[in-house]
């Protein structure tokens, strides 16, 4: 439902489906939004940090990336949605703009 819409909409949708690690979410968003640079990956990570600070996600697990799954030596974080996050997601889902159907 949220593919191709503002990135924070999509991120809330992905976390609403279940708890996820940042290294799972970032490459998926990069692929969907064609944001292939390291800088853009950092931007997505930053968006996740922002929605977590907003109270929509909580960090449930952390580990240091020793095998280089995402970026060697960085902190990997697993996030889970909160009630506030789910409410926010439902609010935006109700207020989405209609898309033009591509033919």
């Amino acid at each position: 439902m949220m593919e191709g819409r503002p990135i924070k909409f999509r991120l809330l949708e992905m976390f609403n489906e279940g708890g996820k690690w940042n290294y799972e979410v970032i490459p998926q968003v990069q692929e969907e939004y064609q944001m292939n640079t390291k800088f853009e990956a950092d931007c997505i990570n930053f968006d996740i940090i922002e929605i977590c600070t907003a109270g929509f996600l909580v960090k449930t697990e952390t580990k240091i990336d020793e095998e280089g799954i995402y970026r060697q030596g960085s902190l990997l974080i697993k996030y889970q949605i909160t009630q506030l996050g789910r409410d926010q997601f439902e609010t935006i889902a109700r207020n989405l703009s209609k898309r033009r159907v591509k033919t």
Partner: protein
Amino acid sequence: MDAEEMKRTNHRKKVKYGYVMGVFLALLWGLWYVPGSLMWVIDPFVSLYNDVAVTHGDIGAMLVTAVLISGANALMATVVLVIWNAYMHKFKEMKRTIVELKAVQKYLIAAAVFAGPMAVFGSYLATGFAGAAFSAVAALAFPVVGTILTTKFAGQRLSKRAIAGILTIVMGCISIYAIGLVDEISSGRMEMMGYVGGLMAVFGWGLEGLVIAKGMDVSEPDAAFHLKMLSETGIWWIIIIPILALAGIPILEYVVNIFTDPAALLVVTCSGFAFGYCTICYYKAYPMIGAGRTMGLSALNAMVAVVFLFALTGSVPDWTVLIGGVLVFIGLILMFYEKKENLESIRGEQEAIE
């Protein structure tokens, strides 16, 4: 370093980033007052003022000039932000955001209305009908209104210590104008319209704070502040300036001069740079340290403006600025040395569901 320790370090870095943005916001805003006040003394703005003053009086002239200044400022800030977002690769995100009218773009348009016409007209009405000090105090009180609104209607939480910090900083900045305010009140020349203007200014910026807090929850700051400035530019240039022109005010004659007069263009460009980058810092600080703290820090612009205007134009502030300086210092200490755990989330402690 183990994962727990790294998590704490990352968190401290995040909070520090928010505060650095808040401090830069105040610096740039204060710096903006230099081109901001220069515009009132150079052409074409002075000619417009004099021209309108003949037919509509000084206050009418001030409001019309404020429109042209705000319009030019918003336009230049929007142009300057194009450079930023080209570098940040955010044009696609802007496109994705602008079409989501009901979910997010409405907040950005509302922010443009509140911080644009409502607050600008309010603060000049306050200056015209009550006095410059009263207007400045009304503008500086906005963090208090904004903090109340964002805690009531956006669910943001603040510790008692953060609230004390915000209040102390605001009191400190207001005390710069204490003597002027007492003079204006005791002169007995303050009119009802001045109070209405003061309320418009304080609620304009306070409500902007509330809608940004809502908008920032679901949008990227870079896309959001650019769209807000674009909306504000639209409001001035597509709605207000044409209305004034249709009402027979000769504003359009002076619009061209802004772009053909090199001095005017330089000052307006500087104003656009300062305002554009100030907006960036404002919107970047919001999601990190919350609305209340950001607005509290933004009040510091008054202190910065006093210093810059003193250094560049030699205007000496009242001695109460010293009391203000001490209060601001105490307020900042209160705010910075708050327990960092309080900022894990700007809406208090949350729990995972499922």
